Every structure is written in C-alpha cells, then in structure tokens.
C-alpha cells in the first residue's frame, strides 16, 4: 500500500534527524531503565514544510465563549511555544523503540558487529527428526506411521476385516522420517556489569555510568539474541542486584574493588562454563580503591582468572572530584599490552559516546 511507503520515508527522515542529534539523546536520562521494545519519546526538530505565514502571536483571532476583556484564553493555542527567530524551535515528538535507537547508535559510531570467538555461536542449529514424508530412504521408514496409513486406507476402502486383520501396506502408505531445522538462540553471552557505588562516586558519576552501561546493554542486546545480563554493585562489599536496582540505587561507603571481582569470579565459575559462554565483564568506577593491597589483589585476579576466560574486560573510569583515578593508572602500568583489557576514561557526559566506541568499537 502506498501509505506504507510514505510512512517508511517519513520514518527514514526521522531516523536521519535522530542521528544528527544523537549525542543529545544519549544523555537523555529518562531512557535509562527502559527495555528493548519500550517506546521512548524523542523530540526532534520539526520537519514541517516551511511557508510564508503569519507569526501566530501577532495574529490573534476570533474565539467563542465566556470571559471579560483581559481574561486569559485557555485551551491549546495555535502554535504554542516560542515563536522563535531561529529555526528548530518547533518540535515534533516521535516514538522510537530502544532497539531502533541501538541500531542508530551502532550506525552512528560505526560499531562493528560482534564476532563471537571460535565456534561459540550465538545460535545453534539442530536437526530434529520430527517430520513425516511420503518419500525417503528405507532406513528412515517409520513403521508405525506407515501402518496407520495402511490401516486407514483399508478401512476406508472397506477391505479391512476385524476378524482377519491383515493389513498390507502398499507404496503410497509408506511414511519416512524427515528432519526439520531448528534454530535455537543460545544464550551463550553474558555481560556482567559492575558498578562502584561508594561514597566517592557522586550522583553525576553514577548517572554517567548508568547511561553508558544502559547503551552498551542496549547495543549488545540488539546483537545477541538471548543475551544474559548480571548486575553487581559494590562499595566495600559487593552484591548482585537486579537491573532496576542497578539503574536506580544510590549507596555509599568505602571501596574494595576486589569484592566485586571476587563476586564476579564466583558467578562465572558457578554459572558460565568457559566452553559455552562469551563473557563480557564491565566495571565502572572512579578509580579510587581503598588500599594498594586490594588493587594488587584485583590485578592478580584479572591476570590469573579473568583474562584467560573472558572475551573482553571493560573498565570505564569516571572522573570524580574525590577519586584519585589511581586504579586506571595501575591497570595501564600492569597490563600495557593486554589485548583483553579495554580501558576507557569518561570525563563527562559528552564523552559517553566516545567511550562506548572505545568499548564496542573493536567487535570483540
């Protein structure tokens, strides 16, 4: 139908507009916590066709109703909002899904599709012999089905005699097993988000972390069907939380990064055997750890446990007033050329997009 075509053109234009201003929308707080099929409202600059027309404010008009001179006229005004001097002050709200936004994010940052390593495919094709076919190799002949067909035929044609129940199958009664292809999405990628919620992480830092992990999550979900996600928050002690808590909690306390790493290690060991899973831990912190000793423990955990097992270990460090940012320096010093480790520094909201590209740009 014609209108579908026109509607698609319109949506393309809208997508184009969203792309142009994507940076703005990424830091739109209200999206965080939405699911992939959820709609979000995005204001985009109006795509009206410009015309020579009167400014609505100057124009006024004729109305009907009660009210004395000087009383305000309520109801929607023609062209409410600022009749501006500059273009782009008229907004149109469009609904888009998080999935669509994730696609746009991918296009905008030119993110590569993630190639799982080895034979760990994201979905598995199996063959099930559940079909029946009138032709096939003798080896796959299905005796019961063939017999049933023969019985049906003989009853229908009236040759069946219950006292002398001989059923002789003929060629067209025979049934053979056939296979069907079953594509099963296999949840064999897990992303473990760890967030430092200690006292040194201010609200702004947490917000940055949430936005960044939200978009990473949106993108990964878009690319891995059946992606598993786990969430860990930590201060001096770590605990697993659900998605909602992760995106909304605020706590405070000291910082022991190793607590999170240990919990993560436990998770991996218990639930995600190395052979079957692509593992992506992400850790966000302001880089302020309690003690050098704890840092050393973290480094050795990374070295001994994580790097051999994970596809990639992402560490994002948020700039904070209180944090020393030491952890990032330690990481860089200890693992100057570790392939699995991806480090990104997120100075402010503006840098979120760049940081996402740091993490996902390599397609690991």
């Amino acid at each position: 139908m014609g209108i579908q075509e026109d509607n698609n053109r319109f949506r393309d234009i809208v997508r184009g507009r969203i792309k142009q201003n994507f940076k703005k929308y990424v830091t739109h707080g209200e999206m965080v916590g939405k699911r992939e099929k959820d709609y979000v409202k995005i204001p985009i600059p109006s795509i009206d066709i410009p015309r020579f027309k009167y400014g609505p404010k100057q124009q006024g008009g004729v109305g009907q109703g009660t009210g004395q001179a000087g009383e305000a006229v309520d109801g929607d005004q023609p062209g409410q909002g600022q009749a501006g001097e500059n273009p782009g002050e008229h907004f149109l709200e469009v609904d888009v899904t998080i999935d669509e936004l994730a696609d746009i994010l991918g296009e905008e940052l030119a993110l590569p599709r993630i190639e799982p390593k080895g034979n760990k495919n994201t979905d598995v094709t199996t063959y099930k012999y559940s079909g029946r076919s009138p032709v096939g190799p003798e080896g796959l002949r299905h005796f019961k089905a063939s017999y049933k067909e023969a019985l049906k035929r003989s009853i229908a044609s009236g040759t069946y005699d219950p006292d002398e129940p001989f059923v002789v199958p003929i060629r067209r009664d025979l049934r053979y097993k056939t296979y069907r292809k079953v594509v099963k999405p296999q949840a064999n990628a897990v992303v473990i988000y760890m967030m430092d919620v200690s006292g040194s992480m201010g609200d702004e830092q947490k917000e940055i972390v949430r936005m960044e992990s939200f978009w990473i999550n949106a993108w990964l979900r878009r690319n891995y069907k059946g992606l598993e996600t786990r969430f860990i928050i930590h201060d001096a002690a770590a605990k697993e939380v659900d998605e909602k808590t992760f995106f909304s909690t605020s706590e405070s306390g000291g910082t022991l990064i190793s607590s999170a790493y240990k919990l993560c290690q436990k998770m991996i060991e218990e639930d995600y055997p190395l052979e079957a899973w692509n593992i992506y831990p992400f850790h966000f912190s302001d880089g302020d750890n309690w003690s050098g000793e704890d840092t050393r423990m973290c480094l050795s955990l990374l070295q001994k446990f994580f790097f051999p097992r994970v596809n990639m270990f992402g560490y994002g460090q948020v700039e904070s007033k209180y944090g020393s940012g030491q952890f990032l320096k330690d990481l860089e010093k200890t693992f100057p050329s570790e392939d699995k480790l991806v480090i990104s520094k997120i100075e402010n909201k503006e840098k979120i997009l760049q940081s996402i590209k740091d993490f996902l740009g390599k397609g690991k």
Partner: protein
Amino acid sequence: MSNLTPELERERQKICRLAKEQGLDFFDTIFEIVNYNQMNQIAAYGGFPVRYPHWRFGMEYEQLSKSYEYGLSKIYELVINNDPCYAYLMEGNDIVDQKLVMAHVFGHCDFFKNNQWFSPTNRKMMDAMANHGTRIRRYMDRYGVEVVEDFIDVCLSLENLIDRHSPYVMDVIKEDPNKKEVVEIEKTDGFRLKVHRDYMEKFINPPELIAQAKAEAAERQKFERRHFPPEPVRDVLNFLLNYAPLESWQQDVISIVREEAYYFAPQGMTKIMNEGWASYWHSKLMTEKIATAAEIIDFADRHSGTMAMSPSGFNPYKVGIELFRDIESRWNKGRYGKEWDECQDMSARQTWDTKEMRGREKIFEVRRNYNDVTFIDEFLTEEFCIQNRMFVYKFNKRTGQFEVDTRDFKAIKAKFLFQLTNFGQPIINVIDANFENRGELLLAHMFEGIEMQPDYMQATMKNLYKIWQRPVNLATVLDSERRIVSFDGKEIKSILLSDLPVGDGNS
C-alpha cells in the same frame, strides 16, 4: 465500488431521497465502508485513495493513526469533491453515526456541485490525482527518489503562493504588446500646463521644469520597458513555472503541486459555509426525518460534540450552521433591508416579523453565490456575535498568554475577515524578475499589519532560491520596520528599506 451492508444501503437510499425532497442537488454519491486503517490512509491523502508518493502523507498518517489508537480522535466522514462524489464511512461506527454522516455528506455534495466557487474545480480529480502519482513515480524512477522528493518539498513550501481568485476571472483583457502606443516623450506636450496668456508661458511652464519632467518620464519609460513583470504577479508558482530555469520534469512537478493547490483552494475559501451547510442539513434531516426516537439522544451527543465552541478559535461548523439558521430566520421574518437596518426601536426589532418566509430560498441562494469572506461580510451581525459569545483575542506580551481583547462587533468582524482573506495567508506578489538589474527575484509582501514568522520565512526563501537559482529578495516588515530580506545562496541578509540606495523606484 460501494460495499454497504443491506441495512446501510436501505438507509442510504432513504436519506438520498429525503435530501432530494428538500431541494438538495448532488452528483451521484458513492459510499464505501472502510476500516480505521484505510480511513487514516485516505485522510492522510486528503481524501483520495491514491496520491503521489511523499513523506508528509506518511507523517500525517502516523499522527492520525496514533491519535486514533490513543482514542484522541476519530474521523467520522470523508468526502471528496468529484463526479461522482466519493464518501467513506468508518467500519464499526454506530448506525446513528452512519446515518448522520450520510446526511452530512449529501450536504457537502450539494455544496460542491452548486457553490459557484467550486465551479472551476476538476470534477475528475480522482483520476488526475492518480495521474499525478504515476508521473511523479516515473520521475522518481528516472532521477532518483531523493532528488524528486526534495524538489517536491521545495514546491510545497511555495504552494500557498497562488492567486486564489484567478480561476474566476473570466476574460482578462489582454493588451496586445505591439499595439501599445509608445509615447515619444520629445514630441509630447503633455507636460505643459494650459496657458491662456502668452506672456504667462515662461512663468507657468518654466523651461527647466518641463525639461526635468521630460527627463523623468523618459527614465520611467526606460524602466518600464525593461521591467518584468510589468504588473505584480500574485500567482508566484505560475510565474516560476514559466520563467525559472527549470528542467522539464521540474516544471511538471510544479504544475502538479499548483494544480492540486488550486483544486483544494475552494475548500479553504468556503470552510465555514461548507461545514455549516452540511451541518444544517444533517441536523434538519436527522431530527425531522431520519433518527428514530431511540437514536435521538445519541445524535444530540454527536452533534453537540461537533458544534463545541472553543475560546481559542472559532468552530467553522458552529459558526456556519448558526449563520445559515440566522439567515433563514431573518429572511423568514423579513429582518433585512433598509427599514430593518434603520429601525432603532429595540422592542420593534424584537417582535419584527413580516411573515415573508423567504428563508429557505435565501439560504439556497447564499450557498450558491457566496464564499466565507462574503458570507461573513454580509451576514455577520452584532446580534449574532452576542448570541454566539464571540470575541477577539490577542497575545499579551506582558503576561505571555493569549487574552480576550474585545467583544466589539466591528473588531470581531474585522478580525474574522482578516483571518479568512487569502485563507489567512500573507499575500505575496512577484514585483521584479530582474531586481537590481542582476536577474534577482523581488517579491513583496502586502503588509496588513501582521508580520510573518521569521524562521519559516527564511527557510522558505532558501527554497525559493533553489528554484530561481539567483538571489531572491522579499520586501516585508520585520520588527515594525520595512525591510528587504534577501538570500543569495549563502546567507540571509536583512536590509532596512530606508538604507537601500534609491534605484529603480520600486518603493
């Protein structure tokens, strides 16, 4: 093809017969039942099943679908001015709604056929629209979707720059350019005043003054000779179609957009009358003939919903139906003419009734001859404004909101007429196609006290440039100062008119 259920078909025949008995006269009217999705599609296409491909129809469709899905709005009827008329009924509406819509539609069809402002419209527009679609699709195949679509955007941006009255001008007296007498200034004596006494000659007609007048006249003539267009042109689209450097497919696209704009123009020019007329008839037919006792409450509910008044604008249905009823009652009671106008006695006015009963005849005459401007100009009365609680509102900069300004009749009428003139669009003329002798285009906004919206104006100038391909200029008023706004392909400039070097005398 009509797909009415037997029940609806029975109703259709009945309503059609009743409408004809009342004197309505229409083209064959074909009703089709459509589901909400089809309805939204047709509505997005301005009532037509097929249009040329363009994203704005998709945008319209999305908005309509959404507001339907959220239960914010619902389209009851759609009818197009065509022979035969096509009208659409929404599947699943109440039978009362369907009857109401049918009665309403017959009112519209009668209006389309008989109102003189619709007389020049193409009655086979359905086919024309489909042809336009085919032509534009063909251009898209040949030149690329984006290229053609961008150009359509540009044309649509200038769509309102047509001369809505030009279809009604029967015979333009065409001056034969060859016959036009060229006055030879040197030989003419026209600059001399009549002198009765010879000795007064050099006082009345001082030679230097005559020489100056001659020089000025020569200058003016020279200007007129190379000035084009000789008269301001209101149909800017047509001017561009003829004189802008365009490829043939672009000319065709402009002509398509222009043709459709002219087709829809009478509907804009008669919105109040058309809706008023259709509402008058649906109300009359439903309450007097069609609705059963069980349906009358539902009818009243729907009808009052349509007639709701709003403080932030007038409702054309309401103003239209009330004016038609007012006219009918005035002409029934003889409340018109010199005597009535001059009568100052309030009690006499209130009981005035000459039992003329010319009301019905008068409203049919009105529906034939008037458009919204003349309709309001002639029939809007002070009593009517009071009864219908009309007022003028304006924007108060201090409080930042729209406020009731006045209930003064003259002000209401003036505002009303202003809003309706040129369909509430600024009037813009082509003044000069060779402005500054550099092939630039000069347009002039006929300023009526209201300035144009600057951002839209600038964007439109940019589009105009894409067609003219030389700098474009627009004389208008901005921030209460007369200015020329120009776009030279790079930047928008706005020059105070008083700062302009006096040149060709365009002012």
